[in-house]
Protein backbone atom coordinates (compact mmCIF):
# COMPACT_ATOMS: atom_id res chain seq x y z
CA UNK A 1 0.00 0.00 0.00
CA UNK A 2 2.97 2.27 0.56
CA UNK A 3 3.47 2.74 -3.16
CA UNK A 4 0.24 4.73 -3.33
CA UNK A 5 0.85 8.24 -4.51
CA UNK A 6 -2.10 8.71 -6.78
CA UNK A 7 -1.07 11.86 -8.63
CA UNK A 8 -0.09 11.80 -12.28
CA UNK A 9 2.65 14.38 -12.06
CA UNK A 10 6.09 13.52 -13.42
CA UNK A 11 7.41 13.17 -9.86
CA UNK A 12 4.53 10.85 -8.94
CA UNK A 13 5.14 8.65 -11.98
CA UNK A 14 8.88 8.50 -11.25
CA UNK A 15 8.12 7.59 -7.61
CA UNK A 16 5.82 4.73 -8.60
CA UNK A 17 8.37 3.43 -11.14
CA UNK A 18 11.17 3.50 -8.52
CA UNK A 19 9.03 1.81 -5.87
CA UNK A 20 7.85 -0.87 -8.30
CA UNK A 21 11.47 -1.60 -9.26
CA UNK A 22 12.61 -1.67 -5.61
CA UNK A 23 9.75 -3.96 -4.52
CA UNK A 24 10.39 -6.33 -7.45
CA UNK A 25 14.06 -6.48 -6.45
CA UNK A 26 12.99 -7.02 -2.84
CA UNK A 27 10.96 -10.11 -3.74
CA UNK A 28 13.80 -11.57 -5.84
CA UNK A 29 16.49 -10.83 -3.21
CA UNK A 30 14.32 -12.17 -0.37
CA UNK A 31 13.60 -15.38 -2.27
CA UNK A 32 17.29 -15.87 -3.14
CA UNK A 33 18.48 -15.12 0.40
CA UNK A 34 16.01 -17.55 2.00
CA UNK A 35 16.97 -20.22 -0.53
CA UNK A 36 20.69 -19.58 0.04
CA UNK A 37 20.42 -19.80 3.83
CA UNK A 38 18.53 -23.08 3.58
CA UNK A 39 20.89 -24.73 1.08
CA UNK A 40 24.34 -23.36 2.02
CA UNK A 41 25.52 -23.60 5.63
CA UNK A 42 26.46 -20.10 6.71
CA UNK A 43 27.62 -18.35 9.84
CA UNK A 44 29.44 -15.23 10.99
CA UNK A 45 29.65 -12.06 8.91
CA UNK A 46 28.47 -13.77 5.71
CA UNK A 47 25.19 -14.71 7.38
CA UNK A 48 24.79 -11.10 8.54
CA UNK A 49 25.38 -9.81 5.01
CA UNK A 50 22.83 -12.23 3.54
CA UNK A 51 20.33 -11.35 6.28
CA UNK A 52 20.71 -7.63 5.59
CA UNK A 53 20.52 -7.84 1.79
CA UNK A 54 16.66 -7.71 1.62
CA UNK A 55 16.81 -4.46 3.61
CA UNK A 56 18.58 -2.69 0.73
CA UNK A 57 15.49 -2.38 -1.53
CA UNK A 58 13.41 -1.37 1.50
CA UNK A 59 15.87 1.48 2.11
CA UNK A 60 15.50 2.33 -1.59
CA UNK A 61 11.71 2.63 -1.10
CA UNK A 62 12.21 5.07 1.78
CA UNK A 63 14.74 7.01 -0.31
CA UNK A 64 12.17 7.16 -3.14
CA UNK A 65 9.75 8.86 -0.77
CA UNK A 66 12.38 11.46 0.05
CA UNK A 67 13.16 12.00 -3.63
CA UNK A 68 9.45 12.36 -4.41
CA UNK A 69 9.15 15.16 -1.87
CA UNK A 70 12.18 16.85 -3.44
CA UNK A 71 11.00 16.46 -7.03
CA UNK A 72 7.28 17.18 -6.68
CA UNK A 73 6.69 20.71 -7.99
CA UNK A 74 2.99 20.77 -7.03
CA UNK A 75 3.05 22.24 -3.53
CA UNK A 76 -0.43 20.94 -2.61
CA UNK A 77 0.43 17.34 -3.53
CA UNK A 78 3.72 17.70 -1.67
CA UNK A 79 1.78 18.81 1.40
CA UNK A 80 -0.56 15.80 1.11
CA UNK A 81 2.39 13.40 0.93
CA UNK A 82 4.07 15.11 3.90
CA UNK A 83 0.84 14.84 5.89
CA UNK A 84 0.61 11.12 5.04
CA UNK A 85 4.19 10.63 6.22
CA UNK A 86 3.29 12.29 9.53
CA UNK A 87 0.25 9.98 9.89
CA UNK A 88 2.43 6.95 9.08
CA UNK A 89 5.13 8.03 11.55
CA UNK A 90 2.46 8.55 14.23
CA UNK A 91 0.97 5.11 13.60
CA UNK A 92 4.44 3.55 13.79
CA UNK A 93 5.37 5.31 17.03
CA UNK A 94 2.00 4.46 18.56
CA UNK A 95 2.46 0.79 17.70
CA UNK A 96 5.94 0.73 19.23
CA UNK A 97 4.94 2.61 22.39
CA UNK A 98 1.84 0.47 22.99
CA UNK A 99 3.89 -2.70 22.52
CA UNK A 100 6.64 -1.36 24.81
CA UNK A 101 4.14 -0.72 27.62
CA UNK A 102 2.55 -4.14 27.13
CA UNK A 103 5.99 -5.76 27.34
CA UNK A 104 7.19 -3.79 30.36
CA UNK A 105 4.02 -3.84 32.45
CA UNK A 106 2.02 -6.86 31.30
CA UNK A 107 4.96 -9.04 30.16
CA UNK A 108 3.56 -9.05 26.63
CA UNK A 109 5.41 -10.51 23.69
CA UNK A 110 7.52 -8.38 21.36
CA UNK A 111 6.13 -7.45 17.97
CA UNK A 112 6.58 -10.00 15.23
CA UNK A 113 9.25 -9.24 12.62
CA UNK A 114 8.27 -6.71 9.93
CA UNK A 115 5.14 -5.51 11.77
CA UNK A 116 6.56 -1.98 12.06
CA UNK A 117 7.32 -1.80 8.34
CA UNK A 118 3.80 -3.02 7.56
CA UNK A 119 2.18 -0.56 9.95
CA UNK A 120 4.13 2.39 8.52
CA UNK A 121 3.35 1.70 4.86
CA UNK A 122 -0.27 0.64 5.50
CA UNK A 123 -0.90 3.88 7.42
CA UNK A 124 0.88 5.86 4.69
CA UNK A 125 -1.20 4.20 1.97
CA UNK A 126 -4.52 4.71 3.80
CA UNK A 127 -3.71 8.37 4.52
CA UNK A 128 -2.80 8.95 0.86
CA UNK A 129 -5.96 7.24 -0.39
CA UNK A 130 -8.25 9.15 1.99
CA UNK A 131 -6.67 12.48 1.05
CA UNK A 132 -6.75 11.57 -2.63
CA UNK A 133 -10.48 10.79 -2.49
CA UNK A 134 -11.20 14.01 -0.56
CA UNK A 135 -9.11 16.19 -2.90
CA UNK A 136 -10.64 14.68 -6.05
CA UNK A 137 -14.10 15.71 -4.85
CA UNK A 138 -15.72 19.06 -5.58
CA UNK A 139 -17.62 20.39 -8.54
CA UNK A 140 -16.02 21.70 -11.65
CA UNK A 141 -18.68 24.21 -12.64
Amino acid at each position, binding site marked *: MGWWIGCNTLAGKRYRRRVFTAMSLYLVILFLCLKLVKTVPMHGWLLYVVALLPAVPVIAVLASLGRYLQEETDEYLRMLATRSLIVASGALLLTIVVNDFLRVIAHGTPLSPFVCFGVFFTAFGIAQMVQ*DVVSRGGN*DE
Partner: protein
Amino acid sequence: MNNQLKALRAELGWSQQLLAEKLEVSRQSVNAIETGRYDPSLPLAFKIARLFGKTIEEVFIEDVSDGE
Protein backbone atom coordinates in the same frame (compact mmCIF):
# COMPACT_ATOMS: atom_id res chain seq x y z
CA MET B 1 -8.65 32.87 3.52
CA ASN B 2 -11.41 33.46 0.93
CA ASN B 3 -10.73 33.83 -2.75
CA GLN B 4 -12.38 34.78 -6.04
CA LEU B 5 -10.78 31.99 -8.02
CA LYS B 6 -13.99 30.19 -8.92
CA ALA B 7 -15.70 33.41 -10.03
CA LEU B 8 -12.70 34.55 -12.07
CA ARG B 9 -12.43 31.15 -13.69
CA ALA B 10 -16.16 31.13 -14.49
CA GLU B 11 -15.90 34.58 -16.11
CA LEU B 12 -13.42 33.16 -18.59
CA GLY B 13 -15.29 29.86 -18.98
CA TRP B 14 -12.27 27.86 -17.89
CA SER B 15 -12.50 24.41 -16.35
CA GLN B 16 -10.49 23.50 -13.25
CA GLN B 17 -8.35 21.27 -15.47
CA LEU B 18 -7.57 24.11 -17.89
CA LEU B 19 -6.68 26.46 -15.06
CA ALA B 20 -4.51 23.75 -13.51
CA GLU B 21 -2.65 23.33 -16.80
CA LYS B 22 -2.08 27.08 -17.10
CA LEU B 23 -0.76 27.20 -13.53
CA GLU B 24 1.25 23.97 -13.99
CA VAL B 25 -0.36 22.34 -10.96
CA SER B 26 -2.80 19.45 -10.50
CA ARG B 27 -6.58 19.80 -10.71
CA GLN B 28 -6.71 18.72 -7.07
CA SER B 29 -4.65 21.79 -6.19
CA VAL B 30 -7.03 24.15 -7.99
CA ASN B 31 -9.99 22.46 -6.35
CA ALA B 32 -8.42 22.66 -2.90
CA ILE B 33 -7.64 26.37 -3.32
CA GLU B 34 -11.11 27.18 -4.67
CA THR B 35 -12.85 25.40 -1.83
CA GLY B 36 -10.62 27.02 0.78
CA ARG B 37 -9.04 23.75 1.91
CA TYR B 38 -5.60 25.00 0.95
CA ASP B 39 -3.99 28.44 0.96
CA PRO B 40 -1.37 28.67 -1.79
CA SER B 41 2.19 29.81 -1.21
CA LEU B 42 3.09 33.39 -2.12
CA PRO B 43 4.74 32.44 -5.45
CA LEU B 44 1.65 30.45 -6.52
CA ALA B 45 -0.68 33.23 -5.33
CA PHE B 46 1.31 35.72 -7.46
CA LYS B 47 1.12 33.34 -10.42
CA ILE B 48 -2.68 33.04 -10.06
CA ALA B 49 -3.13 36.80 -9.75
CA ARG B 50 -0.89 37.47 -12.76
CA LEU B 51 -2.80 34.92 -14.86
CA PHE B 52 -6.06 36.79 -14.28
CA GLY B 53 -4.45 40.22 -14.57
CA LYS B 54 -5.33 41.09 -10.98
CA THR B 55 -3.47 41.91 -7.79
CA ILE B 56 -3.19 39.32 -5.03
CA GLU B 57 -5.59 41.37 -2.89
CA GLU B 58 -8.20 41.23 -5.65
CA VAL B 59 -8.04 37.44 -5.81
CA PHE B 60 -7.44 36.53 -2.18
CA ILE B 61 -9.41 38.12 0.61
CA GLU B 62 -8.27 37.84 4.18
CA ASP B 63 -10.90 36.32 6.43
CA VAL B 64 -10.80 38.54 9.53
CA SER B 65 -12.38 35.76 11.61
CA ASP B 66 -9.17 33.73 10.99
CA GLY B 67 -7.58 35.77 13.75
CA GLU B 68 -4.07 37.14 13.84
